[in-house]
C-alpha cells in the first residue's frame, strides 16, 4: 500500500463519515431525547422508513425537497406521539409498543410508497466545501448536505439545553425519577409524550436524508436497519448528544472502510471489513460499559435499567 493509497482510504473514510452518518445522527439524537425522558422508543426504524417515503413523495408532489423534509419530520412526529400516548396507558410496555410501531411505520411506508418508486423526485443539494482543493477526491468527499450541519448544531443545542434550561431539567428529572417529577407538579406523561413526539420528528428527518440525499432514492430496501443501529448508538454514546454525533461519524467512517479498501486493491477479506462497524461497536461497548460511570449516566427510569 503506497502513501497515495492511504490518502485515498483516509479521504474515503472522511467522505463516508460525512455521507453515511447523518441518518444515524438524527435517529440517535431523537432517541437520546426520548430516553432522557425515561422512555425507550424502539420503533424509530419505522419512523425512518416512513420519513424516507414521505420525504420522497412530498418532494415529488410539491417540487420542493425541503418541504419533503418537513413532511417527513411531521410523519415521524405523528408516529412518535402515538407511541407516547399509548405508553401512558396503564401496564403498557414501551419496548413492545416500539416493536409494534416499527412494523407499523415500515408497513405504512411500503403501502403508500408504491407509486413513488418509479418517479424521480428533486433531491437535496449539497454544499461544495472542497472547492479550495484541486484534488477531485477531496472535493467529492466534502460535498456536504446542510442536514449534516443541522444535526451537529442540534446536538450542541441539546447538550446545552439538557444542562442549562428549565425544560432540560424537567426532562432529565422525569427520566431519572418520575416520583420526584410528580412531587414537583410535573406531568410525567405529558413530558414523555412530547419527548417521544420530538424524537420521532428527528427520526423522520433522518429518513428524509436517506431518500433525498444519500443514497438518494426511494425503494423498499432503502434502510438496512439504520434506525435500529442508531437506537443502539444511544446506549453506546451513553445518552450524551455530542457523543451520539461522534458515534454516528465513527459508524459512517467504518462503513466506508470496506468499499474503499477494495477500491485501492485490498480486496481480500472484504466480509471482515464490511463487518468492521459492528465489531468496532461491540468492542467499544464492552470497554465503556464496564465503568461505573456508564451505569450512572443512564436515565434511572428506563425500563432496561430498572
Amino acid at each position, binding site marked *: 500500500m503506497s502513501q497515495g493509497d492511504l490518502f485515498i482510504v483516509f479521504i*474515503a473514510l472522511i467522505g463516508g463519515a460525512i*455521507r*453515511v452518518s447523518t441518518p444515524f445522527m438524527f435517529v440517535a439524537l431523537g432517541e437520546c431525547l426520548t430516553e432522557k425522558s425515561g422512555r425507550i422508543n424502539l420503533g424509530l426504524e419505522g419512523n425512518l422508513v416512513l420519513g424516507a417515503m414521505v420525504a420522497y413523495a412530498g418532494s415529488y408532489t410539491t417540487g420542493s425537497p425541503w418541504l419533503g423534509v418537513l413532511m417527513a419530520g411531521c410523519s415521524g412526529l405523528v408516529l412518535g406521539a402515538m407511541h407516547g400516548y399509548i405508553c401512558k396507558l396503564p401496564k403498557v410496555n414501551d419496548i413492545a409498543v416500539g416493536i409494534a410501531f416499527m412494523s407499523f411505520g415500515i408497513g405504512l411506508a411500503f403501502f403508500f410508497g408504491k407509486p413513488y418508486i418509479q418517479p424521480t423526485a428533486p433531491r437535496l443539494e449539497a454544499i461544495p466545501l472542497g472547492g479550495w482543493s484541486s484534488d477531485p477526491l477531496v472535493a467529492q468527499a466534502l460535498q456536504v448536505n446542510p442536514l449534516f450541519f443541522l444535526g451537529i448544531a442540534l446536538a450542541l443545542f441539546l447538550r446545552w439545553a439538557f444542562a442549562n434550561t428549565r425544560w432540560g431539567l424537567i426532562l432529565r428529572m422525569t427520566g431519572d425519577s418520575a416520583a420526584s417529577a410528580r412531587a414537583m407538579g410535573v406531568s410525567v406523561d405529558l413530558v414523555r409524550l412530547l419527548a417521544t413526539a420530538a424524537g420521532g420528528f428527528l427520526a423522520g428527518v433522518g429518513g428524509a436524508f436517506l431518500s433525498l440525499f444519500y443514497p438518494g432514492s426511494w425503494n423498499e430496501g432503502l434502510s*438496512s436497519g439504520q434506525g435500529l443501529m442508531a437506537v443502539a448508538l444511544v446506549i453506546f454514546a451513553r445518552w450524551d448528544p455530542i457523543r451520539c454525533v461522534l458515534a454516528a461519524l465513527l459508524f459512517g467512517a467504518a462503513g466506508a472502510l*470496506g468499499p474503499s479498501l*477494495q*477500491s485501492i486493491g485490498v*480486496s481480500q477479506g472484504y*466480509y471482515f471489513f464490511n463487518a468492521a462497524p459492528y465489531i468496532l461497536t461491540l468492542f467499544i461497548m464492552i470497554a465503556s460499559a464496564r465503568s461505573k460511570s456508564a451505569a450512572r449516566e443512564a436515565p434511572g427510569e428506563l425500563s432496561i435499567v430498572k
Partner: protein
Amino acid sequence: MFTSSLTRRSLLKAGAAGAALAALPFGAARAANPIVIGAVYVGPRDDFGWNQAHATAMDILKQVPGVTVIEEEKVAETDAVTQSMESMINLDQANLILATSFGYYTPFVVEAAKKYPNVQFRHAAPLWKEGDPKNAGSYFGYLNQAHFVNGVAAGLSSKAGKIGFVAAKPIPSVLSNVNSVLLGARSVNPNATVQVIFTGEWSLPVREAEASNALIDAGCDVITCHVDGPKVVIETAEARGVKSCGHNASQAPLAPKGFITGAEYKWETIYKIYADALATGSELPNFIAGGYHNDMLRNTPYGAGATPEAIQAADAAIAGLKAKKPIYVGPLKDNTGKIVIEGTMDNYDPVLDGMGYLLEGVQGSTT
C-alpha cells in the same frame, strides 16, 4: 362416460370446438381450459431489477387472450412461499406456478410439485435435474451474454478504459457477468480493465452507493453492477457525471445523460412458450436455458452515454451472440496468473456454471 356424452348437444359443441381449433389453435382450447399463471416474487415488483424483469414479462403475458395472471410480491424464501403457491392453486385454480427466486426451489417447489401433480411448477434458476418431479422444471437466462455486450459498448464509451463493477456476492453467475464485461471491453480495447467491489449482500443501498463512489474515485468512468436493485448504483453514477450500464431491467430513465445500455432478461419469451404449451395441452419443457440465440435476452436501447462506435460494435456483438459466437476463448488466465480456460468454451458449457475466478484484467478478489 363416452356413451353418455354422445348427445346432440355435446356433438355440436365438439364440432364447433373442432372447427375453432382448426382456425385458431390456441383460442378454443383456452376457452375450454382457462390458463391461470401464478408468479411469486421475492422482492417488490418495481425494484428496477430482478423482480421487475419478471413482472414486466408477466404484464406482457396478461395481454395474451385467455391467460389470467396472478402475482404475489415480497414472498420470503421460507414456508411463506409454500403458502403463496398453495393459495394460488387452491383458491385461484392456478395451473402453472412461476417461482422466481433462487431459494424457492428446495424444498418448497419440489415438495409442492409432489403434492400437486396436476399443477406445473417452473423455477428461475438452473436447479431442476433428472429425478426431480416431472411437473417441475427450471428456466434460466445466461445474462452474461448481455453483459458482454455491455462490455463492448462500455469499452468504446469509456475514455479511461476503466469500468467499475458493483457486485453483490462472488457466486458463479455474478463472476461470469464481471468476466464477460471484461472480455467484451477487451474485444474492442485490449487495455481495458474492470474493477470490482463486492458488497456482500444482494440489497444494501448505502453500501452500494459507497462502492459506486469508491470506484468513481478510483478512476472508473463507466459503472455497472450485479445487485438486486441497480437503482442506487445507476443514480449515483449519473449524479457523479460518469456513464453507466444497467442490469436485469431497464434503468435507462434513471440516467438520461450517461446511460449506455443494459443487460436485460426477456422472460416473456419463456412465459409465452409455457402459455402456448398449456393452451395446446402439450408438455411443458422441464429445462430451458436461454441466451441471445433463442431470444431470451436483450440489451436496453442505447442511451445518451453510448458513442456511435460503441453502438455499432455492440450491435455487431449481439449479431455474433445470436450466431452462438463464443465469449470465453482460451487460453485465459485468472487474475492470479493461473490458466483457467484452455480452449474455446461454448456459451452454454456447464463448466462455466461453476466459475469461481476473476479473469486477468479484473481488479478484485473473490474472498
